């Protein structure tokens, strides 16, 4: 299955990408996606603090992903 991964702020700068499509085994978890990202993009591994959102909602590491999900890597926020 494929999910779209979005990067922002420091995550975007480290990966040099604001978005990428990632191929994953069926029912892979957020955790599995992150491990795949870290090995494929060593500079992403330098991002040491972030949350993950799936389809616009903060998600647990154990959450299973589905075809077409939009996953976002959310570094510490600082709006306002």
């Amino acid at each position: 299955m494929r999910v779209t991964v979005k990067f922002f702020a420091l995550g975007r700068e480290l990966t040099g990408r604001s978005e990428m499509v990632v191929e994953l085994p069926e029912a892979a978890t957020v955790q599995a996606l992150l491990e795949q990202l870290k090995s494929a993009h060593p500079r992403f591994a330098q991002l040491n603090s972030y949350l993950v959102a799936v389809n616009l909602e903060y998600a647990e590491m154990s959450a299973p992903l589905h075809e077409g999900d939009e996953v976002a890597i959310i570094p510490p926020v600082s709006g306002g």
Partner: protein
Amino acid sequence: MIEITAEKIEVQKVIDAAYAPECGAVAVFLGTVRNFSRGKQIYRLEYEAYPEMAAKKIREIVEEAKKKWEVKQAAVSHRVGKLEIGEIAVVIAVSTPHRQHAFQACQFIIDRLKEVAPIWKKEVAVDGETWVDDHA
């Protein structure tokens, strides 16, 4: 009105969007770009957002405020892009029948927005650029 915008924010528009005829009080918060931060001189700030999720989170925060206080109408506008000193990054306006609720709800919305809305700012200062982490 809840918006993430690259345009300059017009305060009056946000206040107008929060207007409710049964309310006697409007509390407004403006977040502006300071010239100094953490002891450093700032040249400008750069805001970036995940706009769909930021708008969704802010809508949820506003709904939460409406449950806690007698909020009739609320509006939030958050700017993204490059901002100079003195420019407005965020405006929040809240209408309530009584003023205590307006202040409490407005403060709640900005506090929660800073905690959970996926919006980031980079300080461009004399010694370089830094993504701000207020929670570190």
